[in-house]
């Protein structure tokens, strides 16, 4: 047994030497990944210390779980957690349904040129930065000259313009709808791809039975893409701790702080404005671990649903 193990081991080294060219091609980059993705985990030690920039990483005193205790008794933390979950849930519902609806609608368009044009236009915002998108959101919702207020007043829905971006009660909706604006075209692709797999004969026999358009959508199209829907839903739920830092940070402003402070924004503020590195790291660890567990579980579940794993 021992000998077998040993010969296996020596065979491994033998092969490794043989494959040294492959090592030259891969190891430098693996080291790079190790440094930038794995070494930061070691920095989690900070959360168990009271980091003092003057003393440095190693000499800062240990404080055990004090930082975590402070996090879990901080009411701002719970508000940030609530905001994170609320924003990502609303975004999930809006993005998810809008993408499916768009895919179904596009699938019903018979004119290929029109379909292509709509698709081409609808992906565009996906590729611009959130800075550009946030600019557009601020501009469109501006009470002075924004198109949304112009339209709502023109249609008689509003008596006078509303400063949407400065009002807490609208923030979640602004985030959700701007997210739909930016991603709906792109997210619809995957459902459209799933729809191309539907056998046209199914539609034909439905025609013979005299089924109408809506009937066909609900009886054929949607059930056919149901596996894709389920898997993406599960995967997206896995990302629920991630409310999208860039978007929330850019759309947030002083007057809506109470609802725009997500966990990531909270970490950013504590660390880089108040230099409370240890406290910020403790929140970061909480976020990373919960997110990791959720993502791993959702991936596991989606593999069960899918049989072999999605994507």
């Amino acid at each position: 047994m021992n000998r077998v193990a040993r010969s296996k081991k020596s065979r491994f080294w033998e092969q490794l030497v043989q494959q040294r060219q492959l090592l030259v091609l891969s190891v430098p980059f693996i080291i790079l990944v190790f440094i930038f993705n794995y070494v930061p985990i070691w920095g989690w030690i900070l959360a168990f210390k009271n980091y003092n920039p003057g003393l440095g990483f190693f000499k800062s005193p240990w404080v055990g779980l004090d930082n975590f205790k402070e996090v879990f008794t901080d009411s701002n933390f719970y508000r940030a957690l609530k905001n994170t979950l609320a924003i990502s849930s609303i975004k999930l519902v809006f993005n998810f349904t809008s993408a499916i609806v768009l895919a179904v609608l596009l699938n019903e368009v018979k004119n290929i040129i029109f379909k292509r044009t709509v698709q081409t236009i609808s992906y565009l915002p996906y590729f611009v930065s959130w800075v550009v998108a946030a600019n557009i959101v601020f501009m469109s919702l501006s009470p002075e000259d924004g198109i949304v207020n112009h339209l709502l007043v023109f249609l008689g829905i509003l008596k006078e313009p509303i400063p949407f971006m400065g009002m807490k009660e609208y923030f979640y909706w602004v985030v959700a709808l701007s997210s739909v604006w930016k991603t709906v075209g792109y997210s619809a692709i995957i459902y459209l791809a799933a729809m191309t797999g539907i056998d046209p004969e199914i539609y034909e026999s439905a025609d013979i039975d005299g089924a109408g358009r809506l009937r066909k959508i609900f009886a054929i199209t949607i059930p056919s893409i149901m596996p894709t829907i389920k898997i993406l839903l599960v995967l997206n739920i896995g990302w629920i701790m991630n409310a999208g830092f860039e978007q929330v940070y850019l759309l947030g402003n002083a007057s809506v702080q109470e609802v725009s402070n997500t966990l990531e924004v909270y970490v950013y503020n504590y660390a880089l404005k108040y230099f409370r590195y240890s406290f910020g790291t403790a929140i970061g660890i909480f976020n990373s671990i919960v997110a990791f567990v959720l993502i791993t579980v959702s991936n596991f579940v989606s593999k069960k649903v899918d049989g072999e794993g999605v994507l």
Partner: protein
Amino acid sequence: MRVKTKGLSRITAEDVIFDTVNYIILIFLCVATLYPFLNTLAISLNDATDAIRGNIYLWPREFSWRNYEMILTENTNIGNALFISAARAVAGAGTSVLACLMIAYTLSRKNFVLRKFFIKFLVLTMYFSGGMIPVYLLMRSLGLINNFLVYILPGMVGAYNVMIMRSYIEGIPESLVEAAKIDGASEYRILFTIIMPISMPVIATIILFVAVGQWNSWFDTMLYTSSRQELSTLQFELQKLLSSTQTMTSSSADAADAMGLLDKGIVTPNSLRAAMTIIATVPILFSYPFLQKYFVQGLTLGGVKG
């Protein structure tokens, strides 16, 4: 469509109503997507002082190139930021695609002894992150703060891109590689003279995606290089202008002033913002036909199997 040839489908009232509603919704979506860009373009091409009066929609009222001249010809911070943005897009995409190609090739070799381990090692990075602060402190101890390399090194090996490339390379017939091996070709030679030319479509895809990502990013500038003005990027300058204009008009004037623009001519923060938004969007538009051609592949080709 095939149904029609069978003569079975009649156009019913439901069809007419459905199609009409459908076209209206889709046209509305297109208008809602495009209007803000066209409106921004019109404002950016309008005389800045005139634009204050508002009510500019799709066409400039008093046409002027002044806003763009300000950004592109005068020696301003924005001109430099534009250069840095372009530099990081080119350098980032070039190095990243090379890195991804090299590692993806090794991971596509079925007999490579470390293959499984390296794949797991990479895929795992997609599921967790060390968090903002540990990463920041790491960058600091590596001397990457206020250093151009902070734009390039951390994201050079994207696990997702490596997996996309790997599954593409795995689709290349093994016989090509074996024939070269019999001729005594080294792995490097096989990679650069056989695999690379065949993989051009996926290489182009990754280059575009990384370049767009680099062009669009601003947060790393804010986090790591904001205290060195000459490393600032266009997106970050735009973000600064945005965050100052939305808080108060007077402070936005200060911000634009600080950029050395207001004293040089008649430009307002809003017009400047519009012009910068357009400059930030144009490269995306130019690469759009290519992006569109390839990203559907990328999306469906995800191929991230452990």
